[in-house]
């Protein structure tokens, strides 16, 4: 119980905690732009976390473990697409099924392989190393905030920028957006709607898995039951709050990361009951969703008020039909 509440360390731990949210939300943004509601971010993230640590254990190399996790995440994304496009399974039901299935499956496999139920770790597992960016790290404060993370953190920033360029400045991205906004328009012009949607879902699966891998071998070096712990759902919110825009998602992802860091920090420096404080990120999520909803309503109200004012002033010049 010591120290200031607002410190540079708070900002940098916010960035760290934001990483899985940003990655998953970016995946969600790709899906949303392709017209697919992806609520399975949570399950895909959890799969990534589990596979990354198990593969690292067996392969003896953290990077190889992450690679396997990303591949399996892509495969899960493909399965999601397959059930949706081939059998037209309802997207919400499908997503809930995947989330529940992965949640139980990871516990089952953990028990079969290692005999543990709650959490598992092994001394041989190396956490992904942090590294400093030359030059940047030597700048005071800025260097402390922007430097000194592992490669997944840097990758999440880069992925958002690349995601923006792909979505808005590449042929592939334009096809994604066309499919999402008017499927028939794309179809009648000979764009393969299925292939575009499958690609978007595979990309989302890979990004989510990478976010999950960050949890198990990037941030810590252990796996616990239900490790993603709702972060996938926070990512769904971050995606909506960020208007399905890669750069928007970068900002909203950081906002939620900061909320989590703040909750951790506040527990260390104050005597407020920890159970209440742990709800802080969830409250931030709720507030964000309400803000998005209000924004649309406020727009409408504004237009209506302007119209009524004109009406009251009698500025509407319109012919009146006779009897």
């Amino acid at each position, binding site marked *: 119980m010591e120290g200031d509440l607002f410190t540079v360390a708070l900002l940098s731990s916010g960035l760290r905690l934001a990483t899985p949210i940003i990655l998953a939300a970016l995946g969600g943004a790709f899906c949303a732009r392709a017209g697919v509601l992806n609520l399975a971010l949570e399950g895909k993230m959890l799969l990534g976390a589990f596979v990354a640590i198990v593969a690292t254990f067996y392969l003896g190399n953290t990077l190889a473990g992450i690679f396997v996790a990303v591949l399996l995440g892509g495969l899960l994304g493909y399965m999601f697409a397959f059930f949706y496009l081939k059998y037209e399974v309802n997207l919400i039901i499908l997503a809930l099924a995947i989330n529940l299935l992965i949640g139980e499956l990871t516990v089952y496999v953990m028990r079969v392989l290692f005999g543990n139920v709650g959490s598992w770790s092994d001394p041989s597992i190396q956490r992904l190393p942090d590294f400093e960016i030359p030059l940047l790290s030597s700048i005071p404060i800025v260097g402390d905030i922007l430097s000194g993370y592992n490669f997944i953190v840097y990758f999440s920033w880069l992925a958002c920028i690349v995601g923006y*360029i792909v979505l808005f400045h590449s*042929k592939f991205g334009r096809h994604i*957006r066309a499919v999402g906004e008017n499927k028939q328009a*794309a179809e009648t*012009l000979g*764009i393969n709607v299925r292939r575009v949607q499958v690609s978007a879902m595979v990309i989302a699966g890979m990004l989510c898995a990478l976010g999950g891998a960050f949890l198990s071998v990037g941030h810590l070096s252990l796996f616990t039951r239900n490790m993603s712990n709702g972060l996938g759902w926070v990512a769904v919110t971050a995606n909506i709050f960020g208007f399905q825009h890669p750069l928007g998602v970068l900002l909203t992802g950081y906002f939620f990361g900061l909320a989590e860091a703040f909750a951790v920090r506040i527990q260390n420096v104050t005597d407020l009951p920890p159970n209440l404080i742990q709800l802080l990120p969830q409250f931030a999520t709720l507030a964000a969703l309400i803000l998005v909803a209000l924004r649309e309503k406020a727009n409408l109200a504004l*237009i209506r008020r302007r*119209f009524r004012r004109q009406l009251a002033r009698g500025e509407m010049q319109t012919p009146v039909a*006779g009897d």
Partner: protein
Amino acid sequence: MANAVELRNITKYFPSSNVLANNDVTLSIAEGEVHALVGENGAGKTTLMNIFYGLHQPDSGEILVNGQPVEIHHPDDAIKLGIGMVHQHFKLVPSFTIAENIMLGIEPNQYGMLKKKEEAELVRQLANDFGLPVDPYARIRDLPVGMQQRVEILKALQREAKILILDEPTAVLTPQEVKELLAVVRNLAQRGRTIIFITHKLVEVKDVADRLSVMRGGKMIGTRSVAETSIPDMARMMVGRSVLLELDKKPATPGQVVFKADNITVTDASGLPAVRHISFSVREGEILGIAGVSGNGQTELVEAISGMRPVEGGTFTFVDKDITRRSVGERRKQGMAHIPEDRIKIGLNLETNLDENLVVNRYKLPEFNRLGFMILSAMKRFASFAVKQFSIAAAQPGEMIATLSGGTCRRWCWRVSCLASRSLSLPTSQRAVWMWAALSLCIGRWWMCGTGRRRCC
């Protein structure tokens, strides 16, 4: 003259709706002509063209383009053969610009990255070549319908379409836009494009087409030269008998005012004004027509009158009572009915049977329910009474609405509203000739027997 297109003995059956949409249809279209394809709603015109464009597969028959037999499985195949289609409902991406829509799928790019300047330049050039100027950077959602249609036409031309199918292109346009479109169509024909013009507006056929082919009930009735065929002859081919274009109706003897709209203002779904300060009144025994191109506030006005949409200002008076704030149910109870434009979506519940649809506006009456439970036998009796009374063919009490044909559905919707109504608001948009005649006849009869009585038609 060589034939650009030949469709031979095309047959298409839709098992889901049990409709034989095309029955052994044969059609030849000469190169460089404007060929009108006419017929009533549901005659099979659109199905035939969707087959030609690769959106449906025929059950039998063959397609020849420039004398060569071809297989068209997908719009891609059609585009490669130089066939372009402007659908009745536009296939545009609203948030994209004109250039982005036209070049979708064939974007100029380098390593997958878009070249947006080049793209806009290409579109500008194409537009100027064909005398159809557009702003390549304007967004589709900000454009009027006529301009959106122009984008659709340019889209087909950019893909080097030699054969252009226009599916009811004038249905959504204002008279001015129609004039412009017809000029564009003639101009394209002069440049050697072959145009198939689907419509049921015979005046336009006379204006723009070289030949016309008439379809009725999924069959090809015949092909004629437009110059040698009069409009009444075309109508006869379409309907299969002489069309009663004039209604034999006694002069109106209106009574006192029953419905009054005073200074009514209504906003549309986005909060923008759709109806501004409209006043009118309807007298007993009178039919009042409200005309206008769709999207000019009629829908909002009708919804406001029927009580589905709140008004921003003004009052409605119905038989000396202010009903401005009354609910739909209360308005109906007072003897007002509404036959919606989209009868299938709003007018009927397709999931249930005839009986339930028929009592939907009177199920609260004591003869149809006891302590909140519906009396099925009374409903059935009422349904058989209605079926007999209105001689609706192919309808049995207890039958599911979804199994009825579109026309029958429409008539049912009518009956539901006609029984026990004092005033009606109804749209007659896009009805084919005979349907309009039949509807008028029906309103005419309803009107002639006076108002305020239960038994009308």
